[in-house]
């Protein structure tokens, strides 16, 4: 029976090709617009490290100005000072932990063919790599001893390794960075989390850095502070050391706390730590510690752009208009076929048969709209890439889930749109139509 209905649907579609094309196009445009904006929103709000995002916590303590809160909503500063970074790493109260920060410096590759270039550097502790499960192509991160001994080691991004060493296994090779000889211990595989959750302070869609080196080199190499530096009072004294010891925030702190009780213990530790610091005359504001997990922190930092959300809303309204359009056209089409429906009813087709027959026809239109809509979404994402320029590739890619969502959305939407016209068509009394013949 189904194949018979399919045949009827094709005949009906052929009879009104322009009208059908109009319906398919309307559904496709609606679906295309929605899928484009859903994809962008979905990627921006997706969990960048789903396997353990609820075990990774961002550490916030409030060292700010007694007269002015760091943020108008009363939340603590979004970064910590160098003093806290060093103290938290000394106490090591979590299962894994790493203070991190961004910096930059000149890389002078061996050989004359590659010119010196400016690189973005992330300074981290050894736990950084296992904690965030960062994939390695060659070698690995470094052991704790490197942090303690302040050894000059570096982990390269895959791109940097391609650029400097032509993609070879460069472990144990040396590389001149900031005028010093660094030993390569590892090369990362492709790694581009979206959002770049470990540091969203200067943009959640930024690329990961080119190089990773021990945080403990910060003081000795006087690594420049990149990203946001905020100070509520100026450093006491001159020089790099005074800057490090100041109340200026430029560092981020992550801890891995596998269980709820670990988290409570860490909260207690922070409470005691701030109490101690208060006794030393720091932390003039009320106790205000926070320990959000990855997704809570992303929410707090509003990593989904407002524009993406506005476009999402508008595209759903757009889809609504397209569906209203389809309902109207289907209604017109089915009602104009009253005579034929009357005839079929008269020769024995039940209401149910006709209902199914018309739903099949609607479904065919829906699937057509869904497939075309996917193509339009691909075009739309390509367009977004062109408009925004330098954005992560994963933001503008339709994955399998999204494709299924698109088809299901198109099918459901068109079926819903078809319900009323189908019902109208089925409730035509056969006699009234046959009379006029």
């Amino acid at each position, binding site marked *: 029976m189904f194949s018979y209905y399919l045949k009827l649907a094709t005949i009906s579609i052929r009879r009104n090709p322009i009208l059908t094309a109009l319906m398919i196009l309307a559904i496709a445009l609606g679906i295309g617009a929605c899928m484009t904006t859903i994809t962008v929103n979905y990627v921006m709000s997706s969990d960048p490290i789903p396997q353990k995002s609820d075990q990774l916590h961002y550490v916030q303590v409030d060292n700010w100005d007694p007269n002015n809160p760091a943020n108008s909503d009363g939340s603590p500063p979004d970064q910590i000072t160098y003093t806290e970074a060093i103290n938290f790493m000394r106490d090591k109260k979590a299962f894994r932990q790493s203070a991190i920060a961004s910096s930059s410096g000149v890389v002078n590759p061996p050989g004359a063919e590659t010119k010196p270039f*400016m690189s973005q550097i992330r300074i981290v502790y050894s736990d950084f790599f296992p904690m965030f499960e960062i994939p390695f192509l060659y070698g690995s991160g470094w052991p704790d001893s490197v942090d303690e001994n302040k050894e000059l080691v570096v982990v390269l991004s895959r791109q940097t390794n391609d650029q400097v060493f032509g993609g070879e296994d460069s472990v144990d090779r040396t590389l001149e960075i900031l005028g010093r000889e660094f030993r390569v211990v590892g090369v990362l595989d492709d790694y581009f989390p979206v959002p770049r959750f470990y540091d969203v302070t200067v943009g959640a869609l930024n690329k990961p850095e080119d190089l990773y080196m021990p945080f403990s080199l910060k003081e000795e190499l006087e690594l420049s502070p990149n990203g946001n530096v905020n100070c509520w009072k*100026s*450093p006491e004294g001159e020089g790099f050391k005074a800057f490090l010891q100041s109340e200026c925030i430029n560092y981020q702190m992550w801890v891995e706390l596998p269980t709820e009780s670990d988290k409570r213990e860490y909260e207690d530790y922070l409470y005691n730590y701030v109490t101690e610091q208060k006794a030393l005359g720091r932390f003039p504001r009320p106790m205000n510690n926070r320990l959000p997990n990855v997704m809570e922190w992303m929410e707090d930092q509003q990593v989904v752009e407002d524009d993406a959300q506005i476009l999402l809303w*508008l595209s759903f*309204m757009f889809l609504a208009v397209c569906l209203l359009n389809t309902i109207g056209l289907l209604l017109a089409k089915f009602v104009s076929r009253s005579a034929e429906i009357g005839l079929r009813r008269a020769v024995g087709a039940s209401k149910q048969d006709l209902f199914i027959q018309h739903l099949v026809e609607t479904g065919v239109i829906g699937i057509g709209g869904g497939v075309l809509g996917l193509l339009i979404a691909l075009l739309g994402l390509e367009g977004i890439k062109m408009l925004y320029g330098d954005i992560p590739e994963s933001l503008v890619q339709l994955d399998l889930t999204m494709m299924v969502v698109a088809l299901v959305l198109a099918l459901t939407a068109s079926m819903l749109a078809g319900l009323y016209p189908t019902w109208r068509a089925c409730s035509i009394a056969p006699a009234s139509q046959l009379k006029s013949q």
Partner: protein
Amino acid sequence: MNNLEIGPILRALMRNKVGAALIAIQIAFTMTIIVNAISIIQERDRLMARESGLDEANSFYIDSNGFTEDFNTQVSITEDLDRIRRLPGVISAVQTNAIPMSGSGWSMSLQIEPGAELDGTDAAVYMVDENGIETMDLELLAGENFSPTDVRWRLPSQSDWPDKAIITQAMAEALFPDLGWQQAVGKTIYIQSDEPIIISGIVDKLQAPWVGWSSLELSVLTPEHPLFGSARYLIRTEPGMLDRVMPNVEELLVSTNPDRIVRNLTSMEDRRVESYREHGAMITMLKLIMLVLTLVTALGIVGLASFSVNRRKKQIGIRRALGATQSAILRHFMVENFLISTIGVLLGAALAVGLNIVLVNQFSLTPIDWYLVPAGMITLWIVGQLAVYGPARRAATIPPATATRTV
């Protein structure tokens, strides 16, 4: 009113309520989206139209990073500036820590009384020498420019400030709201709570580097050369010389000292496009949505009207046979569409304002200007009339003889 035959048209409409309602709702939604999209576009256009204060068409910047141990940044800056300023086509050049619209720079809090407990006014800091004003195309409204002897070298971790500064007119107004801005010259202000600075001059307009910042017009110039390892030069050329001067400056920097990386050669016009890229993208997308949506709605009206004409062929024929003119038939469909559109745009006006209230609350957009609502209504009335004209024309050409045929 009588020959518009609103009564019969309404009664005919009531026989196909659903079809009419569908079009009306479609028009309402379309209007909601269009009015709000235009409001957002207007807002973004206003943002993008703000001037940086620079001679953008004839300015560019470039960075120099010395990377060897014995690279002398101070000597290099002095020599570079000297050479760049002598290049043909260059009006003026300056080394600075920040560039308008570039997104990176310093802000400091300034206050008119000393004391850590007092609130200050945040301002962007531009460190420049005595050529800053000319390079940045600023107009000195009061006071005087820096003299070469005012300019000092600022070390990376130095935290004290020069004893004079030039501020923008907007900054003067923000600091001294009760005095006229002209009165600010010679006044002492405080940086870092209690370090005094004397205002030596006031310039017309210079934007802070962050285009999304709420105090975009508040800037301060301080007489110093920042020695931060990386040196950034802002260069202003004679009109029309930009394309020729840019590669010359890059070549000059590369060739005079191999121990450095020369990068980020960017014209201010490119910088502007880049800094406002997301706004530009949003505008393009909204325009596309508006266009496609209007088309979809118009095509929907065409489709439904065509069907309604086909269905009523016989009735139209009867009316023609009974003496209705072609224009009476045309008028029937036009008026019918106008009535449906009216319901649609009225509903649309309410929805547009409603959506706008949501957007204003959720995303702190600006409320729509009142005139957008009537403008949207008129637009959709016109779109409806244009869309229905084709089918209505065809209806009018249905011959009276149709009445005599049975099907």
